[in-house]
């Protein structure tokens, strides 16, 4: 079944089916709503934030560690308090969300592209190339992601680009394996035979015909992986091997506030913790339902 190309009036298109199936589960709808809010907050962070927490000139250490609701010098209030540099936590969370989501999504997309290309070409051409790629994938997947990322950061040094590189390196193998599995099944289908008989170029066959049919499981894996990447970045930041400290992601905000947990200044890590939690939970809720909707047989 190829997705959405012929629309017959009165009959559901596959897309409509997916949408209606998805909406059948109230928990998933809730997750989707939450995720939408989170994404909106991240995208419009500069508009809705009372302060630009990345502009050092706007911060003042004299405002540091104020509890939630304290008056701010510009006449407003620090609704969620401030951190140890005098950053407004609310603004910092919006901006942090932006960074976390950006890191998660960019690394996932890059990994997806690399993984898809490697997996599909491996499946299509087979032979030595396939053996080689799959060996690398096997080996890599047998290593815990945190370990690979840690070693990479140790070797590459710190910085946003390097964290993304590490996350991509960690993730691409998942996609390569998943897409190869799906592609091996699709390869034996008639439409592929047909495409080959038409003497279409390999790249055309792989990307125009094979790829779209392998996409559904990939979307599920990718959704889960975005959440995974965000969590992994947070952990790296916690271990002191992540992003620059003046532009904190959610993970870094939590790590910064971690040292204030015992002292009763809970807000410095509690609120970013909640934001991270909501983000990951909402992504996972959506992913869960997508998994059931897109492919009932694909269950981990």
């Amino acid at each position, binding site marked *: 079944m190829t997705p959405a190309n012929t629309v017959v009036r009165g009959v559901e298109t596959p897309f409509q089916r997916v949408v209606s199936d998805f909406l059948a589960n109230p928990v998933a709808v809730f997750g989707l709503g939450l995720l939408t809010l989170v994404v909106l907050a991240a995208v419009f962070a500069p508009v809705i934030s009372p302060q630009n927490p990345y502009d050092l000139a706007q911060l003042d250490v004299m405002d540091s560690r104020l509890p939630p609701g304290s008056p701010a010098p510009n006449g407003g209030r620090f609704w969620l308090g401030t951190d140890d540099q005098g950053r407004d936590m609310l603004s910092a969370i919006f901006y942090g969300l932006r960074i976390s989501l950006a890191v998660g999504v960019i690394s996932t997309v890059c990994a997806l592209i690399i993984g898809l290309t490697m997996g599909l070409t491996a499946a299509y051409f087979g032979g030595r190339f396939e053996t080689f790629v799959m060996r690398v994938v096997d080996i890599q997947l047998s290593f815990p992601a945190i370990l690979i990322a*840690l070693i990479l950061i140790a070797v590459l040094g710190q910085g946003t680009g390097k964290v993304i590189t590490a996350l991509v390196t960690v993730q691409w193998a998942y996609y390569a394996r998943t897409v190869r599995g799906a592609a091996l099944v699709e390869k034996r289908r008639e439409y592929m035979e047909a495409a080959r008989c038409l003497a279409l170029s390999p790249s055309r066959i792989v990307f125009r015909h094979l790829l779209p049919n392998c996409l559904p499981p990939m979307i599920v894996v990718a959704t889960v992986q975005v959440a995974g990447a965000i969590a992994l970045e947070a952990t790296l930041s916690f271990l002191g091997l992540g992003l620059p400290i003046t532009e904190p992601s959610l993970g870094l905000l939590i790590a910064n506030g971690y040292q204030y947990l015992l002292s009763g200044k809970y807000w410095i890590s509690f609120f970013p913790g909640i934001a991270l939690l909501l983000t990951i939970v909402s992504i996972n809720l959506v992913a869960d339902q997508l998994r059931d909707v897109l492919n009932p047989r694909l269950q981990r």
Partner: protein
Amino acid sequence: MQSVVVLLVMSLLVFVGVYAVGNPIDILINPQADQAEREQAIATLGLDKPLYAQYFVFLGGALHGDLGKSFVHATSALGLILERMPATMELALSAMLIAVVLGIPLGLLAGLKPNGVAGRSIMAGSILGFSLPTFWVGLMLIMVFAVDLHWLPSNGRGPTTLLFGLIPVSFTSWEGIKHLILPATNLALFNLALLIRLTRAGTHEALLQDYVKFARAKGLSNSRVIGVHVLRNILIPIVTVIGLQFGALIGFAIVTESVFAWPGMGKLLIDSINFLDRPVIVAYLLVVVFLFIIINLLVDILYSALDPRVRITDSKG
């Protein structure tokens, strides 16, 4: 043989990588040292040779089971890691035990009653377990159970006794177990959530299979259907995941060990990265790769024991 290649490639990559980060002598040496002392120190650590020569010295040693001496500890890097390994293994095994003992029954429950209150709350809980960052949960556990309630110690490992006269373990005394509970729970959380979801999914699927329906139709008791037929069917994927996840546990132990000051090898790795103690970093990786190879082998053997249809010689995929 493939494993040997992996070991070689890994060691080379890390060797070059750590070399690129910086010269450890800059961190180690007394800043008041003069040039002669500096050169002497560089020579004693073997850092004066070109990189390829250093690597060959390392390889030569590795063939004789010597992975070099730690720059910082003056003892053999392998020895250091082996000394710390029992603590990490104990932690990882305890975490796995907690995950399995709690995860499979909870997953079964959720799978059998997917729409009940229990089933739904178990699934909601498992999403939380998936989503909460390990380090944050660790500190919360310390806050609640050690600082506020004073039930359990906040950190460290309890007294150890020698198992088989060789391996120091701490689970043999109540004090040791008390020290183990919080870090093991912390480390177990993610896998607990994973096992719950896996078991639920497997149960769900198994209940729809013909042979289960047939067993039911034959009038077998519910507990027998579940205990024998359903459980058997979901065991294989679970064993695979346990095997895979055990490796991840060893990796994620790095975080738990930092939070709970657990003297395992993950903590050693972080320290060694900070000191650029290359012999230890390389040795750590080689030991971990070796461990994974063994774990995979064990999983394959377990496979064939669980399911006679699978032979070890079968290739995967």
